[in-house]
């Protein structure tokens, strides 16, 4: 299983984690894979969480690291967060940090992809 699945829509890279549980066991490798993508020039990112069923603070921390890695060079938009994944964003107030949209199409539209 790949750590991430990446598709390009114009200038936007859509990143889908390859794991159902983005927890402390998976988060470091996920973060490293996405940061490598950013270092390769992908500054407009959609994180598509469609397949992610479980997210803990380590997974959330990885997403914050990704946001910091992009910094002022671009944007990160999250889509397809649901159930407990969405609840964690809200509980930790990370829904105020990340733009979270309902579908990949909406996320791409937000980034102009």
């Amino acid at each position, binding site marked *: 299983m790949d750590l991430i699945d990446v598709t390009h829509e114009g200038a936007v890279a859509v990143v889908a984690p390859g794991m159902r549980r983005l*927890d402390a066991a998976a988060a470091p490798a996920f973060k490293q894979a996405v940061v490598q993508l950013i270092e390769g020039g992908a500054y407009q990112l959609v994180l598509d969480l469609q397949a992610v069923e479980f997210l803990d603070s380590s997974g959330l*921390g990885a997403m*914050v690291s990704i946001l910091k890695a992009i910094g002022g060079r671009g944007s990160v938009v999250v889509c397809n967060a649901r159930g407990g994944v969405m609840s964690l964003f809200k509980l930790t107030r990370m829904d105020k940090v990340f733009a979270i949209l309902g579908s990949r199409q909406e996320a791409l539209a937000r980034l102009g992809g």
Partner: protein
Amino acid sequence: MAAKRSRWVLRATLGEVTRATLAVGAMLPSRLTAYQRDAIEIGLAEILTNVVKHGRVGEAPGPVRVTWRERDDRLEFSICDTGRPIPADRLAEADETTFDYEPTDIGNLPESGLGLALIKAAFDVVDYRSRAGMNRMLLQKIYT
């Protein structure tokens, strides 16, 4: 009704944390809401991850004993380990104010340190004791 009870002993590794939280998530009673079940699964993942990442730095993984008990009015977990204890001040300070960061200040957003506050958010009772080299966290979710 007699209390239902299960016990696991796992090695303090992150892979074992994933397996244990998956197993517990599948056992949580349906009388809990989906939100409560999600929060409990996250809370357990956070305490077990804490034991692995901070309790045994530079040491071989030790055993962690997880006991699950369902009573008439509450669900109870006990997590026992022999690693370094959680500092009392860190546990005391972890509450909902942990999430009071400035969301637009990207450079200062927390990349870690949310776990203890998530444990407290998930459970009604959080009692942690460390004595004679044994740590025990008691977590209870009271049915409403």
